[in-house]
């Protein structure tokens, strides 16, 4: 039953009860209460609940809380003044009807008493309004903050998804074009190429569902990918692999090696007239698993300048999310005109 009373009504009840308590305290401490004082006080407070409730309906009706803060202030003052006049006049009328007529007020005229009464009500209503507006202001800020947080979390998870499943459309259409050319030239190769492309597309769709995959599985994709790129670049692309067999069962984030290889092709091979070499190395170093992609070319500070900086940053972010700072990613120029990107991950004991 008590649970069904809204927060608003609780505040009304508690607020006006405090008002009654304070009034009684002052009147009994500093003198004797006049005749009908308690009845008058009770009726005034009940009237207060009614008046403020009507005022609240007006605030809602005028949609005051949705207005800019300056307008809210103007409405606050305006409504307070209008309703305090009503409040004051009706209080006087009730006092008159029940015959409450304190001694100290008898020397004033009716008009003066109406004015005092309204003035007193104004303070009550002003406090009531302030509390009401402040409560809503704070509440609104809090929900806004929550919304922003929720949005940020959503953006983050979406970002991760798109990074994972990202396969460059340029690659897909170029591969399809090469395959079409091969249909006449080398039908057998064309058939294999279609299988390779399907494997890549399928795994990019599945990557969203998994946190990690065994290196073996990722390497299959990378090999299919490189086979297709080799079909495009022909003698311009040389591929070298150096994989420690024991690392094949190590879990790695899906499509991460693939992204690095794609970048290596884009920057190291496709921009160079004579092409270049891609080298993939997987090995244990001390107590870490190191996964390295090397390609011909130089960095030329492209990380800072180009949009590919996003790929590098997101790789680092994915590693942070998965390994809580225990994994590391770096990209740098090494000797022999090569660029090296390296992922260092903790060794996992899963067999």
């Amino acid at each position, binding site marked *: 039953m008590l649970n069904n009373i809204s927060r608003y009504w609780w505040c009304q009840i508690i607020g006006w009860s405090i008002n009654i308590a304070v009034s009684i305290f002052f009147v009994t401490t500093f003198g004797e209460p006049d005749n009908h004082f308690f009845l008058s006080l009770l009726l005034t407070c009940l009237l207060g609940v009614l008046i403020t409730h009507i005022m609240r309906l007006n605030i809602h009706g005028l949609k005051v809380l949705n207005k800019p803060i300056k307008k809210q202030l103007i409405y606050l003052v305006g409504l307070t003044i209008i309703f305090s006049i009503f409040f004051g006049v009706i209080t006087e009328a009730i006092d008159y009807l029940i015959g409450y007529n304190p001694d100290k007020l008898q020397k004033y005229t009716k008009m003066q008493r109406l004015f005092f009464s309204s003035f007193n009500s104004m303070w009550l209503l002003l406090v009531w309004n302030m509390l009401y507006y402040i409560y809503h202001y704070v509440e609104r800020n809090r929900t806004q903050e929550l919304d922003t947080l929720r949005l940020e979390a959503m953006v983050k998870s979406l970002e991760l998804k798109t990074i994972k499943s990202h396969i460059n*459309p*340029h690659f*897909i*259409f*170029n591969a*399809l*074009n*090469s395959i*079409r*050319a*091969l249909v*006449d*030239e080398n039908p057998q190769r064309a058939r294999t190429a279609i299988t390779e492309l399907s494997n890549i597309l399928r795994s990019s769709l599945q990557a969203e569902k998994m946190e990690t995959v065994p290196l073996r599985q990722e390497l299959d994709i990378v090999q299919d990918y490189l086979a297709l790129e080799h*079909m*495009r*670049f*022909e003698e311009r692309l040389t591929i070298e692999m150096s994989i420690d067999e024991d690392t094949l069962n190590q879990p790695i984030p899906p499509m991460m090696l693939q992204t690095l290889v794609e970048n290596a092709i884009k920057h190291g091979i*496709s*921009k*160079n*007239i004579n*092409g270049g070499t891609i080298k993939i190395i997987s090995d244990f170093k001390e107590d870490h698993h190191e996964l390295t992609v090397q390609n011909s070319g130089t960095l030329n500070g492209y990380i800072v300048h180009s949009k590919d900086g996003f790929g590098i940053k997101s790789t680092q972010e994915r590693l942070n999310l998965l390994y809580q700072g225990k994994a590391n990613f770096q990209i740098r120029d090494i000797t022999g005109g090569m660029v090296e990107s390296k992922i260092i991950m903790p060794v996992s004991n899963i067999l």
Partner: protein
Amino acid sequence: MHKAIIIDDERLARNELKKLLSDFPDIEVVGEAANAAEGIEKIESLSPDLIFLDIQMPGKTGFDMLMELERAPHVIFTTAYDEFALKAFEVNALDYLMKPVEPKRLADAINKLQQAEEKELAAAMVGINRGMLGENDQVFVKDGERCWFVKLGEVRLFESVGNYAKVYFGSNKPLILKSLNALEDKLDERIFFRANRKHIINMRMIEKVEPYFNGGLLLDLKAGEKIEVSRRQAVKFKEMMSL
């Protein structure tokens, strides 16, 4: 019969396009190039009517290559998927094909080319091409993300800016990497006149001629530019006009 060159860094892509073009008896593929440098060489030695040009190539892009050409042939761009290039195409309605190329789109592009050529042929009968750049020759200009093929006849004014020349046409004035002197040597002097040290104007774009200080002239161009003609050039200008 049109001579065409295919410029693409992938052998298979070139083969595929050649195969598609074999259905068009009107187009003869006379050469192939695998990068921009080879492309320029082939264009200069074979002077094709049409080139099929890939945008993303090692070394220089297709756009870069076009900017180096004195006179741009008809170009149909080919690209697999390239957001930046697509934006440039959409802005300026250049003709492009997406790989893998749809045969119908290819037919449309070639059709459009033939219509454009018929128009030019009619226009070209008026003058004789002496290796100079005439009104119907087009140049490729690029300004940031935007690019255009500009018919020289549409250019009002070339203005010298250091080693560059500013090309005024329509409401655009992009820069090209050519000096005014080099341009003067190449441009048909019956249409393009060197008014002073800094300007070459298109004679057909003159609206009004007024006398100016020192025996010079002041020319009002159609878009409102006012160009001063030096005294020495004014003599030449009057001579040409009196013919």
